């Protein structure tokens, strides 16, 4: 789909390390700008962190008070995703429910924060809330309706990959980066092992983008630079049964187990937060599983006896230096690092962010990449409707 006049751009080759949501959105963005793209991912696409999230199409309301930069990013991207990926979301909206007096005390700050961040809200009385969601804790005092939704974490990302692929991008799963090829302090490509054949080979690139999520620091060190990424896992529990059609959130500052996301015929209760050094060593502490049930039951009592389908953890890639204790104190926004600032050419890192903001992360990164390549190519991902996820395989 490279148009006449764009031929020059197609001679530039960008290699993206990391086949998660960020890598997918970036491959899509760059392919639309006429850049030749190869994505290398050590496992199945989205098998790192992206595939594991609870599937929330974020309204940003959770961050409306304490992390307004992230909240604004979320609501803007929420609206864009509805436009570019129609038919991919359970669009039942969400409720922030006040169960205790303490929750009620948070209401004013919450409403002010949502207004500042541009998040539409509607306040509901206890009776109205129970008519919408009869399984709510009858102690509910009030609820605030926000534009939350549910997505299939992997299939939304596959739409980005599918569109990128059909625009010429090459996606290589089971292809692990062993080292970066460098000439002096310039990154010239990647040395990979294809795990489906056992063979190693090189892929040359004008720019290598590190989109490896919580593994971003591991990749960055291969180029001799450092990025402040703090892997911060959390536990999620999926139970059998759909107790709510709307996403149910606790009306309070961030805490453990304060969201229940409906997904097909399951309910996903999340989440907790701690920090680790190695995102490949993730525990699922038993106390956290119990905590999810407990906290979930405060919002929907019936969940206490729901049969467990799965309990797992996933490592968020949070921006922040070491020294954080739980991860909840770090911002959920994203950041793009051009390592030319540290003397390393041909290498860019994008990290942080949330599943809902992957497109915005890609736009920022692609802007940096084409600027480095000396090209004038604007971003088009806000308008282009994505192909269906099945197109990734056909």
């Amino acid at each position, binding site marked *: 789909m490279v148009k006449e006049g764009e031929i020059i751009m197609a001679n530039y080759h960008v290699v993206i390390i990391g086949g998660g949501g960020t890598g997918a959105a970036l491959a899509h963005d760059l392919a639309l700008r006429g850049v030749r793209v190869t994505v290398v991912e050590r496992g199945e696409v989205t098998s790192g962190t992206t595939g594991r999230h609870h599937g929330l199409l974020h309204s940003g309301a959770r961050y409306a008070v304490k992390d307004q930069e992230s909240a604004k990013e979320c609501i803007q991207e929420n609206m864009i995703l509805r436009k570019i990926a129609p*038919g991919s979301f359970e669009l039942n909206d969400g409720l922030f429910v006040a169960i205790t007096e303490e929750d009620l005390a948070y209401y004013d700050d919450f409403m002010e924060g949502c207004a500042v961040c541009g998040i539409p809200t509607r306040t509901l009385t206890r009776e109205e809330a129970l008519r919408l969601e009869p*399984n709510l804790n009858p102690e509910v005092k009030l609820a605030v309706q926000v534009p939350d939704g549910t997505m*299939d974490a992997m299939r939304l990302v596959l739409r980005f990959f599918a569109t990128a692929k059909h625009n010429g991008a090459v996606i290589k799963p089971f292809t692990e980066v062993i080292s970066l090829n460098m000439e002096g302090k310039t990154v010239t490509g990647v040395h990979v092992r294809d795990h489906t054949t056992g063979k190693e080979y090189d892929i040359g690139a004008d720019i290598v983008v590190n989109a490896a999520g919580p593994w971003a620091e591991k990749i960055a060190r291969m180029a001799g630079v450092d990025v402040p990424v703090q892997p911060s896992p959390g536990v999620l529990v999926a139970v059998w049964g759909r107790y709510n059609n709307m996403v149910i959130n606790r009306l309070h500052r961030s805490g453990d187990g304060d969201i229940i996301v*409906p997904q097909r015929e399951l309910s996903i209760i999340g989440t907790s937060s701690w920090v680790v050094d190695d995102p490949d060593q993730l525990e699922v502490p038993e106390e956290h599983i119990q905590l999810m049930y407990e906290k979930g039951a405060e919002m929907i009592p019936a969940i206490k006896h729901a049969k467990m389908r799965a309990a797992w953890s996933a490592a968020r890639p949070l921006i922040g230096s070491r020294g954080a204790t739980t991860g909840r104190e770090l911002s959920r926004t994203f950041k793009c690092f051009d390592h030319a600032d540290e003397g390393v050419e041909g290498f860019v890192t994008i990290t942080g962010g949330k599943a809902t903001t992957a497109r915005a992360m890609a736009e920022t990164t692609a802007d940096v990449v084409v600027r480095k390549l000396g090209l004038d190519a604007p971003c088009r991902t806000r308008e282009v409707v994505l192909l269906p996820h099945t197109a990734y395989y056909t």
Partner: protein
Amino acid sequence: MTEKNVQFKVFRYKQGDTAPHYDTFTVTVNERTTVLDALEAIRRDQDGTLTFRHSCHHASCGTCGMRVNGKEVLACVTNVMELGTPEVVVEPLQNAPIISDLVVDMGGFYETFSQAHLPLIRESEYLPESDVAEGVPFHMRLESCLECGLCLSACPVVGTDPEYLGPATLAAVWRVVQEPRGEDPEALLAWVDSEQGCWRCHAAMECTEVCPSNVDPGGAIMALRGELTRRKIGHLLGQG
């Protein structure tokens, strides 16, 4: 937490190998460990070349489908200790070309499945007594089918006949017939009313047996037959 050492006998194959073989790994498991957890531990600590698909870890993406002790399951929700065997045999799904180890090529499946034009979102049948929030047209949810391929691996007819549309695609067509959402149910019914369509099934019902998401493809195939038969009889009577 009790811990136990369990042997995993894992199918191995790389492109270019003349034949597959099995490797045996020992993994320490506890009461919560799933087969997927064990495979990840093997990849991380014992053999970084082991390839397997996974993503959501909660039976939603459908990518971790494989055969464990001969049965089709999603590895992420298969508890190792509950299997009850000291050795666990892990093999790829059947009836799809093997890419490497436990990874199969789902392209052939998707080429057929995508022709059913199944929209991802359907009306939610849950909590019918509840009101719909203002601004929301109706309660919706994701379709149940995870596209995992367990049904295709288990079906004896899919095994013997590469042209058979298969349970997943037929179940998807039935869903479109039940709830068209702008797609063309007539064209789809004509498509499945064929020798390789819903009539090819021999009612082994293995598809419904192994489905991890309550799709009941066997029931869907019989429903398609019922619908087509009703139409044919109505047509005959209408002409008589």
